[in-house]
């Protein structure tokens, strides 16, 4: 095998795999310390995530969210931008989805209603991300700082809207009225019987198809369009971008818009697909999780699907663990997820030098 190919395998597969295994090993030690047999715990986790149809539904429901935010982070990353604002963009995306529904006639056909809500989510998420993008491109404010600040702004704005403006009359909970049911994206458990399959009720809805479709779209966009090409040049070599006649400032804003639009789709899975009303904090954790997902998935849509599935599994399997084991609290589950993020994100390249030395050593240059 050529060294190049070997490096690609190391980077793309071996490294993430080793990182995940390390995280699991660390979790196993943690479990032993609190008196839990790690193998039995792993069994519970896997059973919870894949052992019965409701669990599978939850796993893929979480996965859907992580695909959206993972793609969002990846698109920004290809333009050399670190979008930490997935949380806020997802939240505002949900607002856009909901507003689209409320502003249309309630009796409108779902074939128009749902696409309109998807558009609303993408528009709002994209617009929300475009402001930090603009500030980065034209005012030099660092995108990491501004996107984080925009997360807080989004939270504050949503609380204001849900408490003061959109709240269902007579209800204390800050949430809107239920969407008319032609704005509900069908649940998978309602669809499957038509194909002769049975499934327990779960939040899993057709958004997952949208997520898969978006993976293909993002892949096509990045590698098969002019704009995608320009985004990748900008991210990899800004000097070459200038030389190549690419307007970097425009690219930064556009990439952020696309990134935010993808993150906004979390609002579709959560609100149009499951809660069927705008509620508070449906987005928590997915924006940040998306960063780890994108890192693990090497910013490639297909890698992101795998990484998102891992995180979906950890979420649902973790919930099962906390539910079934009285000595595993939900905090232990968070620690477990944190370990995966630590080893796959922060310590991403820990094994890289060793692996390269072993498996793909540099040939000595002789003259």
């Amino acid at each position: 095998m050529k060294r190049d190919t070997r490096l690609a395998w190391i980077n793309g597969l071996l490294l993430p795999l080793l990182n995940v295994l390390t995280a699991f090993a660390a979790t196993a030690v943690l479990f032993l310390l609190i008196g839990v047999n790690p193998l039995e715990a792993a069994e519970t986790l896997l059973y919870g995530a894949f052992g019965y149809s409701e669990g599978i539904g939850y796993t893929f429901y979480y996965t859907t969210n992580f695909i959206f935010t993972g793609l969002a982070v990846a698109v920004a990353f290809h333009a050399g931008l670190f979008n930490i604002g997935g949380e806020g963009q997802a939240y505002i995306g949900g607002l856009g989805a909901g507003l689209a529904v409320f502003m249309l006639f309630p009796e409108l056909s779902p074939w128009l209603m749902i696409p309109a809500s998807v558009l609303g989510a993408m528009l709002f998420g994209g617009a929300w991300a475009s402001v930090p993008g603009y500030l980065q491109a034209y005012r030099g404010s660092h995108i990491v700082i501004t996107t984080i600040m925009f997360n807080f702004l989004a939270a504050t704005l949503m609380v204001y809207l849900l408490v003061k403006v959109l709240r269902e009359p007579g209800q204390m909970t800050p949430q809107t009225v239920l969407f008319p049911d032609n704005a509900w994206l069908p649940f998978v458990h309602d669809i499957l019987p038509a194909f002769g399959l049975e499934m327990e009720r779960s939040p899993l809805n057709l958004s997952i198809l949208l997520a898969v479709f978006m993976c293909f779209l993002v892949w096509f966009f990045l590698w098969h369009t002019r704009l995608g090409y320009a985004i990748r040049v900008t991210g990899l070599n800004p000097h070459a971008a200038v030389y190549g006649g690419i307007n970097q400032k425009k690219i930064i804003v556009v990439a952020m818009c696309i990134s935010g639009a993808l993150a906004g789709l979390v609002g579709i899975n959560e609100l149009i697909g499951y809660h069927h009303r705008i509620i508070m904090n449906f987005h928590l954790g997915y924006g940040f999780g998306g960063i780890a997902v994108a890192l693990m998935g090497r910013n490639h849509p297909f890698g992101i699907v795998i990484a998102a599935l891992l995180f979906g599994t950890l979420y649902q399997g973790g919930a099962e663990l906390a539910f079934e084991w009285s000595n595993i609290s939900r905090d232990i589950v968070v620690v477990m997820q944190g370990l995966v993020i630590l080893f796959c994100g922060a310590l991403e390249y820990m094994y890289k030098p060793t692996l390269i030395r072993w498996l793909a050593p540099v040939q000595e240059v002789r003259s």
Partner: protein
Amino acid sequence: MNFAIELQDIDKRFGAVHANDHVNLQVETGSIHGIVGENGAGKSTLMSILYGFYQADSGSIKIFGNEYQFTDSHEAIAAGIGMVHQHFMLVDNFTVLENVILGAEGGQLLAEGLQAARQSLKELEEKYGLDVDLDATVDSLSVGLQQRVEILKALYKGAKILILDEPTGVLTPQETDELFKIFAALKAQGVTIILITHKLREIMAVTDTVSVMRRGAMVAHLETPMTSESQLAEHMVGRKVLFNVNKEQVEAGDVLLSVKHLNWTDSQGVPRLKRINFDIRAGEVLGVAGVSGNGQSELLEVLSGITPIQEGSIQIKGQTFSPKEQANPAKMRTMGMAHVPEDRHKQGMVMEFRAAETAILGYHTDDELSNGPWLKPALGRERCADLMQAFDVRPDDVELKSANFSGGNQQKLILAREMEHNPDVLLIGQPTRGVDVGAIEFIHQKILAMRDAGKAVLLVSVELEEILSLSDRIMVLCDGEITGQMDAAKADERTLGMLMANAQQAHDPLQSIASGEGQS
């Protein structure tokens, strides 16, 4: 004789690049020694080895007669070596005093160390005439004073040998004068100074001895009073054995590119281009000669639309660009200009891209390669395969990562991309830098073929031989100014060398900076 520094047979490679080729150097204690050479000649590598940043592959280092093997800069500092970098390593919002003790705080609590440092710094300031307010924050100081802080820092750490890397690049003429006075004071106190620069006038003004480096090798050691600027320039540029290029006389056609009164000042307020005027006709190669760093890069960037025009105008095929009507690279390409950048890694390609992707950089919006917003990767691969065949790029694998081609093949791919697009005006920077001998001849033929096809070619190169053999006309840049334009037939290395050093100019060339000096 008593030597402060003795380097023997220092050799260093970075992959395929031979950065230092068995270098020898001896510097007498208490003298000022200059090292000149073009960018990339290996000066900085040599000094980094001396300062412990890099380790030599072979060779020995002796400081005041003792042999050392530095593994980091702390050991070099302990041996009495101090370095003032081109880019200052100061913490802007610390005071001078805090900056000086950085890395030599002397214990966990600062107060004691600061007090002791203040005392000894006062003494140093007096001894060497280095006057700086110790309690001023660094960002409130002028560039010249910041440099003094760097010098103080080195002396405070006990430096007996001071290395200065391009110290005058950012200084005003007055500040330069002040710096040279400090050199004299340091020398009088027995400090040995190594001055790295490519400004020959400064070498002549302050050094006792001078060494010339070229392509990693030490090519001359000279006593400063016994040499001249033009001799140094010759040594720096050197003669390179080139293949004979058969050049037929072609009648030059219409003016395709016309540059008028171009001035350009960098962000530090230093004028980099001054009153540049020239025309290039169809079927003509205009060679731009000069020691690198004299405005060639800036000229290419302004002409190609990468940096905005500040003053003056560029006319290409009847269309005029000026500060009001700015160009940009995309617009210039549609006007029929192509640009082979000087630094291919930095600008000309994306190392992580596959060859097929690098091969469409700048042309990704071409209708041939895309269908509206959709790219057609298959056509890109096809285009790349064609380019590879036309320019004999090896290996001819369109999927190979750009970084994995050799320098020569990368350059051929970029040349192919720009030339095969059939431009009317071609800007070429350093076409054969880091390219193996076999590819050089090929590249030269391709450049001449462009000329023969009636294109206007601007060729920027630091290789005099290349300029002489390819150009129809030659223009020499020195310090941002055109110091001479002539027919290639009438030019020889000696006259060009004189012009490159601006040797016939009586007054100090630094004076001309003073006239255009602005506050950045």
